[in-house]
């Protein structure tokens, strides 16, 4: 059902969607590149975890979502944050631990969300957010009916007990969550063949009694159009859906990681299949963009991102006197 004639459907994606998707991916990429630079300059504590190479997935999800939908992004979903209400300056504030940032300096790197944009802040414990998202969706549907959830997990996260418990629970209770596995070949240093023994992770769908599909996660058109069909379907006939996206982590686990274990062949393959490149190629062949327009977009975004990082860097960090505020609601 999902595989037939993707090409024709992709061709039918309209120009506005294409350009929003491209813009979101470029914004994410440039923001990541800036974060990496800041990290290597010593401005960021801890580490930086980039979404580079995986942008099509988060971007397509955002473009297929409604305002009331809920998201549980994971490590590599910067496009979700940027597409659901945050601008680069918020991302830099988060990474730099600034007071005005999403977690007000209380947490760093990828551990943030945007309640106003329906985005949960992940905790590190992989798999733990899927059931939280499910509860959020359940709550909203009691009031507004049409909310669905978008959950993101890496290949490694599927090994956790939490992934399983939540998958089974949402299947039993027909909670409409699009569970997106971003299979990027590695969990930290661990390649997928040491992470699981099944052929593809989508093979797990059957065991939960849910529908599933494996797609090319680096092909923005395919990701967009597949999600579009699924989203319409589960919004009207509520139930989970397991979508495995083949992709590749193009950097170390975090910027502290030399990535020495990476198989060069994989890097080469996915460099050629870079989602932004693929989008530009597709748009060019459809006459939707020119090299000049793309370069102008890149420049504009780069400038915006540079300015945002400058702004965030200049902002104050949290006041130490606030350390104990807000552990509880009234305190």
């Amino acid at each position, binding site marked *: 059902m999902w595989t037939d004639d993707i090409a024709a459907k992709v061709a039918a994606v309209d120009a506005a969607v294409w350009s929003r998707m491209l813009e979101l991916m470029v914004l994410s990429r440039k923001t990541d590149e800036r974060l990496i630079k800041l990290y290597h300059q010593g401005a960021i504590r801890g580490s930086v975890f980039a979404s580079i190479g995986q942008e099509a997935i988060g971007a397509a999800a955002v473009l297929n979502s409604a305002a009331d939908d809920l998201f549980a992004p994971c490590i590599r979903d910067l496009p979700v944050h940027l597409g659901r209400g945050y601008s680069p300056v918020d991302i830099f504030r988060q990474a730099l631990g600034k007071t005005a940032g999403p977690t007000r300096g209380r947490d760093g790197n990828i551990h943030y969300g945007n309640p106003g944009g329906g985005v949960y802040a992940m905790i590190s414990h992989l798999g733990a957010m899927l059931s939280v998202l499910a509860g959020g969706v359940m709550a909203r549907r009691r009031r507004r009916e049409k909310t669905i959830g978008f959950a993101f997990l890496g290949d490694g996260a599927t090994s956790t007990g*939490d992934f399983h418990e939540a998958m089974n629970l949402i299947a039993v209770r027909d909670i409409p969550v699009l569970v997106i596995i971003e299979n990027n070949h590695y969990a930290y240093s661990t390649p997928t063949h040491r992470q699981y023994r099944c052929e593809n992770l989508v093979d797990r769908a059957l065991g939960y009694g849910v529908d599933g599909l494996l797609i090319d996660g680096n092909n923005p058109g395919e990701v967009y159009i597949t999600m579009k069909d699924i989203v319409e379907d589960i919004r009207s006939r509520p139930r989970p859906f397991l979508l495995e996206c083949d992709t590749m982590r193009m950097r170390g686990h975090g910027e502290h990681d030399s990535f020495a274990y990476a198989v060069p062949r994989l890097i080469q393959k996915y460099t050629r299949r870079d989602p932004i490149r693929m989008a530009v190629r597709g748009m060019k062949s459809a006459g939707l963009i020119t090299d000049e327009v793309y370069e102008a977009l890149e420049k504009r975004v780069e400038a915006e991102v540079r300015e945002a990082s400058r702004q965030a860097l200049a902002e104050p960090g949290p006041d130490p006197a606030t350390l104990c505020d807000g552990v509880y609601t009234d305190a």
Partner: protein
Amino acid sequence: MREMTYIGAIQAGMEQVLREDPSVVVFGQDVGGFGGAFKATEGLQKQFGEDRVFDTPICESAMLGLALGLASQGMRPIVEMQFADFATTAIHQLLNNAGTMHYRTGVSASMTVRAPCGGGMGGGPFHSEELEAIFCHMPGIKVVYPATSADARGLLLAAVQDPDPVIFLENKYLYRREKQLLPKHGDPVPIGQASVVRNGYDACVLTYGAMVPETLHAASHLSAEENYEVMVVDLRSLKPYDEETIIAAVAATSRVLIVHEGWRTCGFGAELAALIAEKAFHLLDAPVRRVTAPDVPVPFARELEDVYRPHADTIAQALIELIEF
């Protein structure tokens, strides 16, 4: 007024909040048609429907995550652990997820986790645990532990109203042993307030849960037999605990015994002793003593469990030593 058992009061509390607040849902393993392993939710699904009271698969982590998600969107979930012991499979959902949500993101999570605990009935190592020390160590989490029917209902109402995650510890030994005449409609018992359940001046006992009635027995016995008058403080809330009442009890008696049914090392009693050693040191006339379970898995056989759990007589004995120190 009607007589309510401790578990009946918990059931009545849930019935009341389900009736009065549409944002309340109750879920857990077997809590629906079956009414729960201990029958605390009996009749609730029938009354409020499968939408409000529902069964889940066996998945403590997903259950707690679901509750957090519901709470984050303004619902007020009550989730039942079939036994507190099984919450150990999902400590991260409490400690790391629920406990940090408001601090990190500003989103309140008003959720109540009911956790049946305690021994005395041959439940063995995995159906008798007292885990309050672990729960109380978690920033962002509140912990209450009633000892009477009135407090069971009142603290449940307060927990559900509270904007933050509350772990509601309920003692299985008291389920059908504790009874009180209570009005039909319950009022919340404020979280954070201890209750002085017996007055005295020779010593005070700080305790909670099933050890409250044991301690009261010991105190009456000492009053009758030894002419010692012992103050008994039922803490009711463990986090936050009622520092003021505790210090006042120490000031009034100068001798403190701490009694609980959980393990000794790093048990909740250690926190109380530390508080007193720091803030009420000058009020003390004797060492602060703890009567607790030993650091041993909760044994099954009556012969063992009887000595494992503190009893009125061990408490009385410790009090005599303390008073005559």
